[in-house]
């Protein structure tokens, strides 16, 4: 492998990490900095059923949704906003659709800037159409199409991103089988290799078009684990496994930044605090205000070091108080206003402590996203950078050790036994990545959709 894996921490201590500030802020076209000292809301509307029928209806849908968000900022006096549109498949399948929607939104943003001085930016998140079951990840029409869509959107968008799917065919198999080895293989080896192929191309497109290569998220794997772990009454996947998957995800998603992405990382990358600790790049986060998309046991703590504060996805429709993009812009904007007040007052450490204490001992997932723990996991990653495998395994082991070493983090008997089992399994794995890959290629050869060639294995 030619990719240089991170070998140092951007932040020398977790105490230096704070919401609203990144060591390396980035600027959207209107000049607004992300990570430059203030938290900015990031609203993500989702089009209604039926609006995807043709470009015209979809343009109209996003015109309303994105316009409602911008208008709400004016009504309430919010200084800035990022609008993210995650592509429905039609927008990537027809790269012109994604482009026209990006063009329209850029126009709306310009209008609000001219009329009111509102600072806004647009993130276009391309749909990863490359289903491992049905397409070669690198050599297929679908692979070409997503790159074409990036090109098309980069002309107008401020930020381009993707939630890439490499390894999902193995993680879907592994996560419901308590198979931590499979998750490690899927995330670190397969996901990492796929990103190493994909991200230099995205970064190249962004550079050419003068826009920002935002970043990737392990939505397809670590978030599936988190969703399945669910709440306290759920019985699908142990929370301790979801936490280990999150630590491993950091090693995977980091690849985007190692390939030249500059952030802001995507909201649903709950691994972002770890990545921010390593890279110093600005990150988006979601928490309580993304309850519209899914529940989470880390509603406040995810804000602790965020630069953008987002809602993941809300379908467009009317509520008593206005349309959902307006309603969620209001909630996100006030969350951000509170954080920015704390910065202006010098109370940001206190506010951060409140966020952290809300969720630190609520669940394993909340615990490992606390800045101090996230930083430790990051350190294990950079200190074990022989391979994507070795660093993800180290992240998981460190994560497990930290969880087990803090007596205030309580587990059910089942969760603890499961965790001890995963740790034993991880410790027994081979040292060298090559040996691990050989082992896994054999172990998963019968998994239906898995084609090692997609990863050049």
């Amino acid at each position, binding site marked *: 492998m030619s990719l240089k894996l991170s070998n140092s921490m951007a932040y020398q201590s977790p105490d230096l990490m704070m919401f609203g500030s990144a060591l390396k802020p980035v600027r959207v076209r209107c000049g607004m900095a992300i990570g430059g*000292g203030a938290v900015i809301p990031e609203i993500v509307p989702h089009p209604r059923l039926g609006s995807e029928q043709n470009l015209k209806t979809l343009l109209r849908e996003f015109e309303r949704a994105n316009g409602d968000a911008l208008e709400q900022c*004016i009504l309430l006096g919010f200084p800035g906003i990022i609008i993210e549109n995650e592509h429905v498949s039609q927008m990537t399948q027809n790269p012109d659709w994604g482009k026209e929607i990006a063009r329209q939104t850029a126009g709306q943003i310009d209008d609000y800037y001219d009329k009111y001085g509102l600072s806004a930016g647009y993130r276009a998140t391309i749909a990863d159409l490359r289903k491992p079951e049905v397409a070669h990840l690198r050599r297929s029409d679908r692979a070409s199409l997503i790159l074409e869509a990036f090109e098309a959107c980069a002309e107008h968008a401020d930020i381009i991103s993707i939630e890439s799917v490499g390894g999902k065919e193995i993680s879907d198999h592994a996560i419901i089988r308590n198979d931590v080895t499979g998750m490690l293989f899927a995330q670190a080896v397969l996901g990492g290799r796929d990103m190493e192929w994909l991200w230099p191309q995205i970064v190249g497109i962004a550079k050419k078009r003068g826009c920002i290569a935002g970043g990737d998220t392990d939505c397809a794997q670590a978030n599936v684990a988190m969703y399945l772990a669910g709440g306290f009454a759920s019985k699908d996947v142990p929370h301790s496994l979801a936490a280990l998957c999150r630590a491993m995800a950091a090693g995977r998603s980091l690849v985007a930044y190692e390939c030249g992405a500059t952030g802001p990382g995507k909201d649903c990358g709950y691994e972002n605090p770890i990545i921010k600790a390593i890279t110093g790049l600005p990150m988006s986060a979601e928490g309580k205000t993304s309850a519209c998309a899914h529940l989470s046991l880390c509603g406040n703590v995810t804000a602790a070091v965020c630069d953008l504060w987002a809602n993941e996805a809300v379908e467009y429709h009317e509520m008593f108080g206005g349309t959902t993009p307006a309603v969620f812009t209001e909630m996100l904007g006030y969350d951000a206003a509170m954080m920015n007040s704390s910065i*202006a007052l010098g109370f940001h450490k206190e506010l951060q402590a409140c966020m952290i204490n809300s969720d630190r001992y609520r669940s394993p997932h909340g615990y490992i996203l606390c800045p101090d723990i996230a930083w430790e996991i990051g350190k294990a990653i950079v200190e074990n950078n022989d391979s994507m495998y070795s660093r993800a395994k180290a992240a998981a082991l460190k994560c497990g050790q930290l969880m087990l070493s803090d007596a205030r983090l309580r587990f059910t008997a089942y969760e603890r036994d499961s965790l001890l089992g995963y740790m034993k399994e991880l410790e027994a794995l081979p040292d060298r990545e090559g040996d691990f890959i050989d082992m896994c290629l054999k172990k998963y050869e019968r998994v239906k959709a898995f084609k090692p060639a997609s990863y050049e294995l």
Partner: protein
Amino acid sequence: MKYAADTSGIFSRYDISIEVARQKAREVSEDVLLQKVVEQLVAGDEAGVEASVELALEHEEPMKVINDGLIPGMKEVSRLWAEGVYFLPQVILSSDAMMAGISLCEKRLGKPVKKKATVVTHTPEGDIHDIGQVIVNALLNASGFEVVNLGVDVPVEQVVETCRLRRPVMLTGTALMTTTMTAFPRTAAGLRELGLDIPFVCGGGAVTEEFVTSFDLGIWGRDASQAPEMAEDAMNGMTWQEMRAKWNG
């Protein structure tokens, strides 16, 4: 308590940065007495309008006072509102003043002035926040329409019967709660049964475009301020389908 010195990251006062400079009303009439009527009207001064109309009526015909004083004055108010200079209360106060002025002219004429057309307004079930109909009534009055205001908690049958008798060019309904807006499609069906294809503008709180455009006659009203222009459209013979195409979608 500590207060932040720099609030620029917390909020932006767009209201201040975009405030439209106040403007005086334009000169509308060269006749000094009628221009006085206009100025009092634009100021929303009901007593002043009454006094200046009385004075004008000593020298002018009532219809001239109306057509060259009160009506152009109200048009000036509408312009100032449309341009963001005026707030709603200024429009309502001017409207009140105009009605008072017209009332004096009518007394002199000995008969009521002919209104542009009739509009029926109602609220099927009142909610404590429901002020929409009050605003719609005032704005329609100000624009010269005859408003038949049925008030709140009005049964479907009464709405349909009133429309049958008064043949309005438009019907409006406001509702704030979803659980009361079920009355609208029933009202629309009642009108259709009688062959009354009256454009039925529905709006308020929980009333969505999707819901209103799901039944015949329904046109969704986003804001009370749209009512006068919608009534003009209806008066000019637009069908409900044409109005829906213009105002919704």
